[in-house]
Each structure stands twice: as structure tokens, then as C-alpha cells.
């Protein structure tokens, strides 16, 4: 029997990156097939290709043995592929039933007059059959995230999707909700539907799937039977880089007194769900502490709470023994907390403003560049010229808008500014994401230099190699908590990879 889905040699390039590089994938009818990989491994690109959002540069899509070409997402829908996105595609003021028929151009939704009663009955029946009951007349904004996800699944089932893609479906669920989702997934598979389950959480993959395909750096690494794999072996395949290539530099200098102390810190994420759940941390002068973790486990929120961009709901942050006022970024800056944010372009700089303006983004209030209410434009310019020279920023003079710089040079602008005010604490988040090898080397050198100068560095990164190369101590963050703290010398990649994915030693 031909597999339900077969992807042959799929390649998709974006400017500067190959997101999918000759990916092979196949899933049978009635199978739950997990797609496992780190962020940036190419999972999202692959699912976007399968749902007709992207057109592959090369390769073939076969459904039940027949070659298909999707010109648009509608073609994929018509071919029986349904997708539940991580960020839901629902219209909040509409009812469940209305959302279900939205965009349906073959059945009920095509008619000029819709019959809400009929749709509501169908939706209720589907809900009962798959154990995902939702009141069809409820409006989306009244539902919890877990219920909204059920609506997304109902939408796909209503359109008779035979192949269902779930993109990190448990990210917004409580453990209980996740358990009931797995139940639904199994029912769907028993009926002969194919479920593609995208995740980077090992225990889920173990719990729900029949087979696993592992992607790394845009390539298929392996497809294995779940039954014969362990969390540890999957972690090795997922993270599985050449551990020997990791270069650790032992710095000969003492570690000083604590400069950053975080205690019982809690904070809500953008959607109101608690994202930081009682984090405690200490960083000493001259020390680099790495926080490893898969993106979306509360690292960004933690960084924002420490730097005062986000108000904590509980707990406290102190710098060099003095308590910071929560949610006050200015207080954190004055206390000497430098911050290299994850989103360089829209948080780290004001993109349309000149390099010179961005170099004084935090220090414009100070005496060096301001006299009373007036800015000393000459001083600002001179300051920028000297920093551009010292940090070797290429791609433009002080008047060039920051957004015209390449990623590496933009990062140099941010680093130059943050180092310039002699910080006590340096918080860097994903500092080398999207940079080329040479730029990565430069950024790492600056971070080491900062530590050598006695700054306490907190490095948040999804790149394990980076953390292993730089950090003295490693804390692993999972679902808003620090689940382990290890000495960098003693930690193994497999162990950290396992902890990052919420696994426990078997």
C-alpha cells in the first residue's frame, strides 16, 4: 500500500539559508508520525510546504501514491490535508460553528444562506466522537486556549481532512489537556487518518507516536520506530552534533561576588499564561552562566523581567546587593544591567534611526551627550564614530539607518552600546542567531572579554554548542522553571538535550 504522505527530496531555500535540504518523509495511513527537531531544523518549513503555503524549490509531494502540486493552501485543503497551527487561525468574535465553516468552499460554507442549527449539530457530533466536545454556539474569545485548539481540530475534521498536521500542539496546553489531546489523536489514527505530530518534547513523542522522523539543520537524520527508541537516543539524534568540535576555553581568573541575584521570580507571558514560574539564579562577577532550553520555555520572559521590561508577578531581582524595582527598565539600566535582546532589530535598536542615535539609545539622558534638555549632536556623532571604529562596524557611517546593517554588524552596534557604559551584569539572549561564522566568533570574543573584565554574564541561548563553549555553569530551563543546574565541565550534550526536552534520566 502506498504511504498516505510521501515527501521526496524536498528542498526549500530562503535568501541566505537552506531551510529544507533534500528532506525525505513518509507516513502511513492510520499512523501517528512525529516530526522531531530543534528550532530552525526545518519542521515549520516542511509543514508549510505540505499545506501549500510554500512551493518547494525541488522535490515531490505524493499523497496515497499520486504526485501532487499545491498552488495554494486551498489545494492542500482540498487534497485532505488539515493543519492546526501553533498560533490559532480563529476569528474571536465568531462562534465555534461559524469558525468551523469559515473558508469551507465545498460544503455548508459555500451556500449564501447558512443554517447554523445544522452546522452546530454536525460540530457537536464530531466533538462527541473524538472526545473534543466544545459548545458550538460559544464565541471563540470565551474559550480557553485548549478549547480553541479543539475548534481548530474540529475545523480540520469537518473538512474531512485525512492527513492532520499538529504543530507543537501541547505548547499551550496543561498536562491534563495534553493527555486528552493524545487520546483524540489515537482515535483519529484508529479511523485510518494520518497524524503528523510536530514537537521537540521527547516524552510526548514517546507517548503518542508510532514512528519518529528527526530533522536537523534542514536534513532528515533518521526515521525510527518509537517503540525501539529511548528518550536518550532521540535526544542524541536531535541534538547530535559533533561534541568533539565544541571548544571550551578555560579562563584563568577568579570568580567574584554575586552581582545578579534572582529569587522566586514569576511573570506572565504575552498571552497572560504564566511563563516564568519561580526562577532563582545567581551570577557572580566574572562568571558566565548559560541558560539552555528550547525556545518558548520562558527564557524571553525571564530576560525581560530581569531587565525591567516586564513586570514580575512575584519574586525579586537584585544587582550587586541592591533590590531593583520590578517592571522599571530605567532602574535596571541605572543599576548597571546591560541587555542584548533576542530581537535585535526591533528591540535592540530603533531600526529607522541612525547608527549614531542607536549608540546613545540608553545614554542620551547622560551628561556626555546632553546639556539640559538639548542633545549635543556633535558629541553623539563623535561617540558613534569612535565606537564604529573600535567595534569594527561595517556597512555605514553614523548617519546610516540601523536597519540597513547586516545582522552581524547590527549586533556589534548593540554590543558596543551595551559594553560602553561599563555594566555590572550583561544579559545576552540568542546573541549569534542568524549570524555567519566570523560574526559568531567576534560576538563570542566580546562576551568572553566582558567576563574577563569582571562582568557577570547571563547567556540565554538555544544553541547548546554556544552555551558549552562559553558558560561556566549551565542552568536548563523547561516550561518556565530551572529544572537543573550543572557545572559546564561535567555536563554532557546528551544529558542537557534530555533535560531541555523535559525528559528525565531513564
Amino acid at each position, binding site marked *: 500500500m502506498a504511504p498516505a504522505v510521501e515527501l521526496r527530496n524536498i528542498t526549500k531555500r530562503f535568501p541566505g539559508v537552506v531551510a529544507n535540504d533534500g528532506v525525505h518523509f513518509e507516513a502511513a495511513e492510520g499512523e501517528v508520525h512525529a516530526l522531531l527537531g530543534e528550532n530552525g531544523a526545518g519542521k515549520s518549513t516542511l509543514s508549510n510546504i505540505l499545506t501549500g503555503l510554500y512551493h518547494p524549490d525541488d522535490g515531490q509531494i505524493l499523497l496515497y501514491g499520486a504526485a501532487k502540486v499545491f498552488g495554494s493552501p486551498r489545494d492542500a485543503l482540498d487534497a485532505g490535508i488539515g493543519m492546526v497551527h501553533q498560533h490559532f487561525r480563529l476569528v474571536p468574535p465568531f462562534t465555534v460553528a461559524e469558525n468551523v465553516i469559515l473558508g469551507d468552499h465545498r460544503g455548508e460554507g459555500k451556500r449564501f444562506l447558512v443554517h447554523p442549527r445544522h452546522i452546530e449539530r454536525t460540530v457537536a457530533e464530531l466533538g462527541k466522537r473524538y472526545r473534543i466536545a466544545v459548545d458550538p454556539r460559544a464565541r471563540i474569545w470565551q474559550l480557553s486556549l485548549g478549547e480553541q485548539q479543539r475548534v481548530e481540530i474540529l475545523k480540520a475534521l469537518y473538512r474531512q481532512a485525512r492527513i492532520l498536521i499538529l504543530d507543537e500542539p501541547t505548547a499551550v496546553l496543561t498536562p491534563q489537556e495534553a493527555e486528552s489531546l493524545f487520546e483524540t489523536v489515537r482515535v483519529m489514527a484508529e479511523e485510518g487518518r494520518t497524524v503528523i505530530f510536530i514537537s521537540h518534547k521527547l516524552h510526548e513523542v514517546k507517548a503518542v507516536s508510532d514512528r519518529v522522523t528527526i530533522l536537523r539543520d534542514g536534513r532528515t537524520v533518521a526515521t525510527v520506530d518509537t517503540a525501539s527508541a529511548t528518550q536518550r537516543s532521540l535526544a542524541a539524534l536531535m541534538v547530535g552534533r559533533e561534541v568533539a568540535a565544541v571548544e571550551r576555553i578555560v579562563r584563568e581568573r577568579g570568580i567574584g561576588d554575586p552581582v545578579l541575584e534572582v529569587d522566586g521570580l514569576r511573570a506572565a507571558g504575552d498571552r497572560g499564561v504564566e511563563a516564568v514560574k519561580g526562577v532563582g539564579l545567581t551570577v557572580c562577577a566574572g562568571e558566565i552562566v548559560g541558560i539552555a532550553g528550547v525556545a518558548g520555555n520562558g527564557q524571553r520572559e525571564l530576560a525581560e523581567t530581569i531587565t525591567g521590561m516586564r513586570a514580575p508577578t512575584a519574586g525579586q531581582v537584585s544587582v550587586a546587593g541592591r533590590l531593583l524595582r520590578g517592571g522599571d527598565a530605567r532602574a535596571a539600566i541605572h543599576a548597571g544591567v546591560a541587555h542584548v535582546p533576542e530581537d535585535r532589530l526591533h528591540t535592540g535598536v530603533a531600526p529607522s534611526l541612525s547608527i549614531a542615535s542607536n549608540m546613545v539609545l540608553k545614554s*542620551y539622558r547622560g551628561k556626555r551627550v546632553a546639556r539640559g*534638555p538639548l*542633545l549635543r549632536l556633535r558629541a553623539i556623532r563623535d561617540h558613534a564614530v569612535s565606537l564604529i571604529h573600535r567595534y569594527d562596524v561595517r556597512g555605514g557611517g553614523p548617519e546610516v539607518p540601523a536597519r540597513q546593517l547586516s545582522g552581524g554588524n547590527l549586533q556589534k552596534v548593540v554590543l558596543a552600546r551595551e559594553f560602553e557604559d561599563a555594566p555590572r551584569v550583561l544579559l545576552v539572549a540568542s546573541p549569534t542567531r542568524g549570524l555567519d561564522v566570523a560574526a559568531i566568533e567576534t560576538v563570542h570574543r566580546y562576551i568572553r572579554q566582558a567576563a574577563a573584565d569582571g562582568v557577570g554574564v547571563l547567556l540565554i541561548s538555544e544553541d547548546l554548542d554556544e552555551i558549552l563553549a562559553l558558560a561556566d555553569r549551565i542552568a536548563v530551563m523547561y516550561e518556565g522553571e530551572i529544572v537543573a543546574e550543572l557545572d559546564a565541565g561535567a555536563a554532557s550534550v546528551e544529558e542537557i538535550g534530555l533535560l531541555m526536552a523535559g525528559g528525565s534520566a531513564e
Partner: protein
Amino acid sequence: MIRIERRLEQPRWLAVAVPLGSLVAAFVVMTLVLLATHHPPGHTFWRLLVTGFGSTFALNSTFVSATPLLFTGLCAAVAFRMQLFNIGGEGQLYAGAILGAGAGIALGNHSGWLSVPAMIGAGVVGGAALALIPGVLRAYLSTNEIITSLMLNYAAALVIDYLIFDSLSYWRDTSTPSAKVFPQGKVLPDAASWPIAHLGGIELPFGFLVAIVLALFVWVLYSRTKFGFEVRVIGDSTRAASYAGMRTRRKILAVMALSGAIAGLGGASQDGDFRHTLDPRGLTAAGYGYAGIVVAALARYNPFAVCLIAFLLGGLQNAGYALQGADFPSGLVGVLQGLILFCALGGELLTRYRLTIDRRSRRAEAVT
């Protein structure tokens, strides 16, 4: 497939080429319209130029038309610069006109040195107070300021109508029997008439000079001060602003107040410079507040460009009045003015976006 894409960079030559190109396009279309309606295009354009800018008389009228546009243009530019879309210049101008006229009447006919500054102050307070309503709502409740400020325009228009037409308010003239039948505002005392600067034969209204000084002030404020720096950062990226520890709420309040104050000052200038009474009909019919948004957009929020554009649009408006007559219907004047604005604003789009012809998707379709 033709797509509209955002330009990543804006080459300098575009800033000159696009307005010129838009103007050429406008004249081409206008020529077609004029030919179709049997009016000689060359002669019409010549008259447009002469009646707008070609004589002392024309220039004086142009300054009268340009002054309120300068105020409302600055009002919009100041707020839009921070991505704060104050559409309420219209209502804030009324508020300034109401308080300005009230101050002028209350202070009687003593001295211009007393009345003029008091009217300016009252206008500023009126406009700023009205603008602070959407400002506070935006800063503390994240209410969309476009809607709230727009709605307040209607509220302000009703208030100004009420004061003269539907009540025996302080502003209404009730001294003669005819004034009781045909409602009108009290005429301001002579001391409340703002002075006029004479420059050769040209008469510059005091309000015009005040507005020029304001433009200079705004330019210094936005390009040379810490306050202006924060406004520019917030306007570009609110996340970057909060990252840098800027107090965004305070800035929203301050910028709304400043924006409203400028429009309110424009309202007081209407009382003191031109109308010498509170004139609801004249003010509501003119729609200065909305025209100011067009001025600000064409000027790309640059205060000096606001001065230039307000002057040109004032001339265009003024030429329109002179052009219309038995042989030239006023509707056609409106069409010509509309065409120039349409092309200018349409061209503005091209400085920020560009059209690309997407060949790749066509190839993809060919494969399938």
C-alpha cells in the same frame, strides 16, 4: 503577478523625483479633464498660478488661507511623528476658537498687549485639554486614538453650534432684535484683533508669524532635544523604547497636549486674525483640521515642509475661488484641486513601496 513591496531603502533622489513626477502626472490628467470640458488648459494653468501667487493681492489672500493649514498641519505632524494618530485637529481648533473668543470678549477693549496673549493662552489650553481626552485614554487604556479623537470632532462641532445657534450663551450676540432672530456671535472688541505685519505691500497675519515660530520650535524640539529623541524612538519602535527605559505614557500625554495646543492656537488665530467673532458656520465648513492631515502627510511630518505645503495648498485654494465663475464651474475647480492632491498622495506611496513584477510565481505556474 504585480506585487506591492515595501522599500527597504529610500534613495535620496526619490524624495525629489516622486513629488515632481506626481505633479507632472497631475497636470497630464488635468489637461485631459480640461480638454474634455472645452477649457483651454494652458490659459487655465496660467490663471491658476497668477490668481494663487501672481500678485500682492493674491499673495495676501494666500496667506489668509495658509495660516490655519499651517497650524493644523503642524498639529498632525507633531503627533504622527510618534505614530500617534491625532485626527482631532478639527475639534481641537474649535475648542481653541471657543476659549480664544471667550477670552477676547471677557477682557474687553483695553489693550492688545493684554488681549492677544490671553487669547493665545486660552486657545492653547482649549486645544490641549480636548486632545488630552484621547491622550489619556490611549496612554492608560490603550484606546485607539484615531477613533476617539475623530469622534470628539463631532462633539466639538455640536458644542460650537450650540453656543451660537441653540442657546443664549456668553458668545452669542443678543444686543439687537435682528441678532436675536438671526443668531451670530458677539463681535470681538478691537483690542482682540491681532496685529498685521506689513512687508512692502504684503500683509502677514500675526497668526502666520506665530505659526512659523512654532514650526521652528517643533523642529528644534524634535531634532535637538532629549524629548524629541524619545518621540522618534517611540515612533519607530515601542519595544526599543521600553527596552531603553523610556516612559512611553508620559510622552503620549505630552505629545497629544502639544498637538492639540497647536490646533487650538490655530482656532484662536481664526478669532483674532480673521473672523473677529466665534463663527461656527465658517469654521465647520472650512474643515481646516482634516486639510491639515493632508498637509502633514505631504510634508512627511517635517515642520518646514509643512510651512511650504500649507502655503502652496493655501494658494491653490485661493486660486480656486478666483477661477470659478460663469465660464468655469466651481465643481471643476474642485476636480482640479482633488487631482493635484490625489496624485501627490498617491506618489507618496511610491516613496515607501515599490511595484515589482513577480516572475518566480509565474514560472512556478508554468511548471504545473
